[in-house]
């Protein structure tokens, strides 16, 4: 349809862009992760596995990684629990309000991440909206300290931020289900609950998998929410990477952790794609 020259001209700029700003940095990171740093803080280009050895030996990295995964898993779970019913309502029951409600799901994505994270700070803080309210109605005498600077605050904030990312693919999957299948199920004697478990849920699995992957992967790599709201107990693996590339000035170790994360994320995406394929039928 299009000439070779046209295709080349059109694809070359994005290809260059991706190579320069994605592939090259990854390659650099890959190199760095096998280099080392002297006590005098100079990077030595001698190839070795020391960084990876340190990663595997020091429990602090493992613990932080596990905590990050546990936080990401909870965010994923809560996003699905919030997002699925909402997507279901949007797709099946919203009627004329469908478009408006859909926009309401999208709009929070336009607001800066920082604004949303700071909003939770003002809500959860010891002089925050929630604590003031609780004391005002005499439910508590002192501000609840666990609300802010805790994994709880991180999970809450990330759930708030990433729920739209789970709603959208689930909604798309639900919209994809031919409505006559729902009618057929009803017609064959299935109650609405049976129809949900036997027809709607199985056919929306690809959307659920996509949404879950979004929530998990995006949360796993998050560093702003734990930085702003996590406190010492809410530190996540990306915070360590940030400090290694910054104040701690140990780029090689930071690069090694980053590559480890990359490996985890890529395997997850691979797994997610396999699952989605297995559960799509058209």
């Amino acid at each position, binding site marked *: 349809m299009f000439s070779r020259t046209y295709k080349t001209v059109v694809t070359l700029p994005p290809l260059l862009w991706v190579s320069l700003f994605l592939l090259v940095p990854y390659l650099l990171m890959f190199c760095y992760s096998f280099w080392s740093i002297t006590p005098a803080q100079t990077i030595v280009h001698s190839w070795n596995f020391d960084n990876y050895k340190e990663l595997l030996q020091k429990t602090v990295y493992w613990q932080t990684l596990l905590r990050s995964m546990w936080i990401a898993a909870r965010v994923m779970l809560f996003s699905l629990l919030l997002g699925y019913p909402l997507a279901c309502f949007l797709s099946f029951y919203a009627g004329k309000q469908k478009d408006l409600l859909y926009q309401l799901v999208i709009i929070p994505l336009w607001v800066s991440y920082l604004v949303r994270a700071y909003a939770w700070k003002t809500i959860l803080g010891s002089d925050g909206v929630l604590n003031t309210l609780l004391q005002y109605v005499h439910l508590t005498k002192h501000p609840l300290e666990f609300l802010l600077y805790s994994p709880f605050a991180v999970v809450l904030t990330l759930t708030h931020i990433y729920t739209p990312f789970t709603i959208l693919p689930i909604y798309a999957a639900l919209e994809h289900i*031919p409505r*006559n*299948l729902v*009618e*057929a*199920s*009803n*017609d*064959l*004697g*299935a*109650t*609405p609950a*049976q129809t949900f478990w*036997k*027809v709607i849920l*199985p*056919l929306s699995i690809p959307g659920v998998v996509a949404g879950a992957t979004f929530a998990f992967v995006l949360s796993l790599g998050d560093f702003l929410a734990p930085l702003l709201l996590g406190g010492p107990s809410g530190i996540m693996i990306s915070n360590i990477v940030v400090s290694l590339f910054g104040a701690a000035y140990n780029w090689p170790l930071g690069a090694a952790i980053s590559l480890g994360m990359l490996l985890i994320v890529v395997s997850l995406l691979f797994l997610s794609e396999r699952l989605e394929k297995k*559960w799509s*039928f*058209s």
Partner: protein
Amino acid sequence: MLKNVSLEIAEGEFLTILGESGSGKTTLLRIIAGFETATSGELWMESERLDHQPPYRRRVNTVFQSYALFPHLTVEENVAYGLRVAKRPAAEIEQRVAEALDKVKMTAYAKSKPSKISGGQQQRVALARALVNRPRLLLLDEPLSALDANLRRQMQVELKSLQREVGIAFVFVTHDQEEAMVMSDRIALLRSGELEQIATPREIYNRPATAYVAQFIGHTNLLKGEVRGGVVNSGSLTWQTTLPDGPALFSLRPEQLRLAQNDAPRTAVRVRGKVVHQAFHGATELIRVACADGLVLIARTAGGVEPGSVIELEFSASDAIPVRESAERM
């Protein structure tokens, strides 16, 4: 939209709802199934009022136009669906599913997914999935419209004999009058949401109630006339009638018009005209004959009439069936 539709379906009957698209036939079916609610009116099955019941409580099953097979379930699981949600014992499910698949000759495909079988096969599975529940009434929404002509004719015969075998009342929706004639015990002809006529195929063809019915089912000649003193005057034609005085409309089927013969009874009405068009229909031919006063008649002949020739046609007065004028409707 439906207006003032009232009909009764007998046990074990094959009733066809026939109508053009937009006549409301699918709406009627969806009201019986429970997917839509009528703004007024009632729906009864024996002594049980149906219209307040959700679809899953009605002992009515539907074969959907696009089959609506569950893509994530195998053929066998699709057929078992109704029995599973009704929580029937596993042994019974297995046996009834096997029977149903056997009845529609799909046993060999029991483990296949719907996307792996042809349209005709999906059709059979949809039928088995509905029939396995032994409904009191089976609704079929243009189930054959997606099939090609040959398969369609074959399925018409199969469906009809299957219906006789299981003895379940079928309500079959179609826009194809030929299909309706071949399969039905009775035909309900819908037009713009109103029932034009409900009768056996033979009756609806031979005794159409309205001009619309006469024209929708097969070919016909509509003769407009004026009755005065037991005699019809329609253009240059006149014949005896028992109708009261006033304007009248008659339907005359093309096969009731024959080439005039000398030994015809005296009651026969004769008309001369020129053959203007001839269409070959296999065993018979349809010819258009232009007569006096701009009257054009369609006649069915055995053939051998050349276009351009002038011929004389005749018909018995009793074959001109008085029909009601069909008012123009939105």
